[in-house]
Each structure stands twice: as structure tokens, then as C-alpha cells.
């Protein structure tokens, strides 16, 4: 799959504020971190926006958001309660959390009248937990998730930019 990076194709796109670290070169596996939203705000669209949205919902604990108690997933509460004791349990919990997140995304995306339509390269059709690891010494859990977009292989990756188009 070839991903062509560009910063010019924001026309007609709905944008969001960048939350994860700017990925200039989208080739290969990328490690993402929370970016400096307050000091260097950027807008995102396209794949990064969708992945960012997925990540935010996955890592939000169910019941944490006032007036949206059913938003989020059970992944972080499972980690915090010590429920995940092995890789099999991690995979099981991820499946449950992923299902919930995808349902939320699709429900919101379906409200075209309120939020407008999306281009295919922003629509996540499926996800797959391709790799996962637990470092018991550092307490770090690593998840590698493969996203399949509705556009298939023709993805235009939009580099986050500092100005609104």
C-alpha cells in the first residue's frame, strides 16, 4: 500500500485539533505520543484524524465523561483494576473494547444530517489487533492495531498543519 503524504488536500475536509504527535512520514509503524496541543496547535484530517478519534475513545474509561457515561471503553478500567493478567485476557478485553468503540464511531458517522458525510479514507471499516505485548517489569502494554479504511489502498495522508484551511 502506498501512502502519499501531503499537506495541501484539506479542501472539503472536516478538520479536528491534533491530539497525538505529528507524524510527518506515515510510512511504517509509528509510535504516537500526546503532542503539545496548547503550545503548537495543529489541525488534522484524513487518516490521522480517524486514528486519533479511535485512540481517544479506546483510551477513555467508561463512566468517566459526565453526561456521556457510555462513552469510552473498558480497556483502561481493566488495566487499572489488574484484570489483565496475561496476553489472552488482554486480547479478550481488547476485542470487547474495540467493538464498543467501533459501534460508537459508526453511530456518530451515521448521523450525516448533523455532522455531514465523510470521505472513504476517513472511514474505518475494520480493525485488527496484529500484535500485543506486556512488559511486566516496566508495566507497559504495547498494542499494534491494523486499521482498514473504506478507501482500501488509496489513502492520502494529510500532514497536520498549523492553520485552518
Amino acid at each position, binding site marked *: 500500500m502506498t501512502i502519499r503524504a501531503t499537506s495541501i488536500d484539506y479542501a472539503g*475536509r*472536516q*478538520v*479536528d*485539533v*491534533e*491530539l497525538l504527535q505529528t507524524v510527518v512520514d506515515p510510512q511504517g509503524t509509528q509510535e504516537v505520543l500526546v503532542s503539545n*496541543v496548547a503550545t503548537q496547535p495543529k489541525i488534522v*484530517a484524513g487518516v490521522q*484524524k480517524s486514528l*486519533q*478519534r*479511535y485512540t*481517544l*475513545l479506546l483510551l477513555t474509561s467508561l463512566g468517566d*465523561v*459526565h*453526561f*456521556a457515561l457510555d*462513552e469510552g471503553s473498558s480497556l483502561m478500567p481493566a488495566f487499572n483494576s489488574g484484570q489483565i493478567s496475561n496476553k489472552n485476557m488482554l486480547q479478550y478485553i481488547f476485542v470487547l473494547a474495540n467493538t464498543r*468503540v467501533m459501534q*460508537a*464511531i459508526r*453511530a*456518530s*458517522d451515521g448521523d450525516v444530517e*448533523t*455532522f*455531514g458525510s465523510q470521505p472513504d479514507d476517513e472511514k474505518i471499516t475494520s480493525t485488527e489487533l496484529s500484535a500485543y505485548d506486556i512488559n511486566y517489569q516496566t508495566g507497559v502494554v504495547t498494542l499494534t492495531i491494523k486499521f482498514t479504511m473504506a478507501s482500501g489502498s488509496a489513502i492520502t495522508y494529510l500532514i497536520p498543519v498549523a492553520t*485552518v*484551511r
Partner: protein
Amino acid sequence: MSIIVFNDLTQAQFDSAEQLIISKVRTGYPQLDLRTGTVLREQLIRPAAELYALDGERMTAIAQDTSLLELSKQSDPDPVSVNAVLSNFNMTLNTGFSATGTVLVRVNANRVYTLPAGLTFSTLPGLKYAGGTLTRVRVGANTSAGEIELRTADGISYYFLYPLIAAAEDIEYNIPAGTAMDPTSSIYGYVSSSAYTDFTGGLNASTLTEAIASIPDALTHRALTDRNAISARLHGEFDSTNTVIQDISVQGYGDDAQLRDKHNLMGWAVGARVDIWVRTFTNPVSTTLIVDGTWVSANTYQLTVGVSDAPGYYAVRSVCEVDSVAISSYPVVTDIRTVAASTANHDIDVTRSPTDVVGTVYQGGTIVVSGVPYADSTREFRVDLYTAPGLASIQAFVDDRSVASVGSDCLVRCPLICLVDVSTTIYRKSGVVLDVTALQTQLINYINSRSFTQRLTRSELANILIQAGASRVDLTTTGFQLSGRLRDALGNWLTLQGDVLDIQTIFNAAALVTPQTVVFAAIPGSINLTVVTE
């Protein structure tokens, strides 16, 4: 007014605010992605929606707390908020008053009785009344030290009079003299007790609806120059007190019952005299006095009522022995009113119009009773007089230099009371339950609401009975007997009876009997209903 915080918001309020903000932002900035999970939605829209919903609810609460109409819709409006709004109209909400009176307690021996602080008496329905501080009762009591005199009429049975105050601020605590009352804790030597005087002055807190209705009066200009202004001024001053002004009739220049402005050779009206007839009671109220009577002839005694004993009293209700609580009376031979106090500020000339002082706070009374089976040179009597509570306070208010009209002489008077009796037969269908006591109360309340109106008719009263569930009312002459009696200002008792009690039929301006000076009233026991099942 309680402070609304985030936790007070509901899901529906938040959802409504969020939808509104999303709609507004999407309209102005359609390129912003506000779907669930986006940073804009979670970090911008959601907090904004919470703040918007909170502000909206606070604004609604402020609007409600500053609107008397909205406050009146609440089941229990905050009195602080209510008074804050009413203060804009120079008003406050009446918080209610407790009824007060005296109980006669009979005991079995001459000894010293110690009444504990707060000794409570209760009526049969459970209305409670409490006494004051620790009190001693004995013969030869030191009344200046708060002791109560232990009395006896025959040296065998003893009694004392103990003042009480109602446990709650409610009009239902106004009970008539003679009502049975029992102590809730034991009194050594106790025999029996009952209300010695009418318990009066009990008043419920004003409702917000009543306060709203009185705002026009509060906004009226406050000089004592016309009927509306006089009414507004008196209501504004006394509505927050336990002097309840039920109705006012003002007689001034050109009015039939204004005689004081005719004190001239030609008898022409010259104005500048205003008589304010004030009904300050719903049920007729009587003031109970213990008065020394002087023997004048066989079985006849003369009693004097001082100017401050029962200001402006209307008529004698009864004169009997001190320890009597029954509404029985020695025959009243005469009840003569005199000017008993300085009237420097008012034109009261009984040589020109004998009625000038009647019903005013400047009158005293000399009462002669007969049929007394004793020959003591002096003897104490219990005297009950129909009065208008608060008359002295009202007169003092209109005489205040800061209030008094500089162009008129305003004199406050107790109205002439037409005491009504009703006796009728009502019919009910089989299976229909009629509460006779409730019907009597309804009729009494209706009659007592009729002030300064010319007529009271049988059909008005019959309609009340029909509305309450009676299938029909016997309106034959003998089946429904309506009668009334009133004492005119010259001391004559007049009787009305028939289908209509029409004051105009006994109109006599010289005796101050006009529709504008007479109020209708009924006391418990004056309504007799016979229920027949059809």
C-alpha cells in the same frame, strides 16, 4: 435562593444545550468535525454545553425568583425571595400570628398552685395552647410579680384565669369562649377547664397569591385623601400585623352616614370630616372584662367600661357572673355611650349629633343590668363586649402627624354588626352524605364575608347548601328562617327577617344605619340545619 451547580443539571438539559451548540457551530463552521470522539467534540463542545446548560438554569432560577407569578406557582416558595421582590412594592409577607386568650381552670381547694412553664391545654380536636413562665396561683396573689389570683364565688369552689397562646400561627386556633380545654399534664386539685374568653388574633401566614392581589393597594398613593388611598394606606400599614383589615367603608362629604360635618346652625355639610368604618374581624370578636359593678337598686347594678377597656366596642354581648363561661346574660337595661377621653384632634360633638362618639376609641360606656340575685354594694361581673380588634392602633396611626390628612378629620369606627341567625331544613338523596358541621361553617364564613353590602338573601345561602350537595332547600317561610338584629348608634336594637335582610329597609342616617356602616356577621351556634333524607 439556592445556587445551582453542575450536579443539579440533568442529562436532558445537557443534551439540549449540546445539540444547540453543535447546530450553531456547524452552521458557522461546517469544516469542523464534531463527531463523537473528536478533540473538538470532547474538549470544546462538551464543556461549552455544560456551561451553557448551567447558565441557562441559573438564569431561569433568577427569573423565577424575581417574578411573583413564577414564585406563586411553586409549592413552597422561598420566603426570602418573596420578600425580596415584595420590598420593591414596599410590602412584606405576613408571617402569621398565634391566637391568644384566657382559660378558666377550676380547682378543688384553697391552696397554692404552681403551674410549670409552658403548661399546655388542648381542645378536643387537638388544638394546643401553652402558658408562659413558671407561675404561682394563690389567694392574695402578688400580680405585679406575675402571680395569678385564685378566685372563689362561694368559698367552696375555686378557679383562676390563665392566659394562653396558641401553639401555631393558624386561624383555626381562634375558638369561642366556652370551648372545652383540658391540660395535657396533671394539675394538683384540677376539676375542669374551658376557654374563658374568645381566643382571637390567630392568623395564617399570607399566601403569595394574597400578596400579589394587594400590590395595587401598595402602589396607590398613600395620602388619606380618597377611598382608595385610605384603604391602601391602612392595608399597607396593618397587613403585616395581627390587625386584619377585612373591609373598609369611608364616609365623607355628602355621604349619608357623615353627620360630623353638619355641626353648624343650618345643618349643612361642610366636608373635612371622614369616618372610616373598619371591619377587623371575620367572626364577631368579643372582649372579656372583669368589671366592678355598683348596686343602684334592687337586683340592679351599674357597670362602667373605660375608654381603654374595649376601644370602640359595638354592643354588649353578655353580662354574667365572673366564673360563668356560658353565653348567658343578665338583662341589659341600658348601654349608654359617652365621650370618655379628650377628642382635641377630632370634631366630636354629642350635643349636636349623639352618635358622634359611638364606635370610636373615645367612647366609654355605662351599662345597667337587672335580675342580679345579690345585694352587695359592689360586685364583680364578667362583661363580654363585641369589639373590632386593633381599632385603637388604627386610630393612632391615622392621627400620626406624619400620616394624618392636613385637610380632614379622620375618625375610625367599629361597624354596626347585623348578627344573623339561620334556621332551615335541607334535603339529601339517600346515599349522599352531608357534613352538617361543614355546612354550618360554610354559611358562617359566607355571612362573615359580607361587609358594607346592602343585602343578604336566603337564595345566596340556599345556593351554598345546594352546591355543597343538598338536593333541595326548604324555602318556605317557615322552612327557611333568616333573621338579623343590630344595634343602631342611638342604642336601639333593630330586627330584620324574611327572604332578604335589606339594610335599606331600616335606613336611618341619624342613627348611622346605612348599607355603608353595617356588616353582616354570624357566630357559631347561630346556624341551625335540619337534614332530611328523601
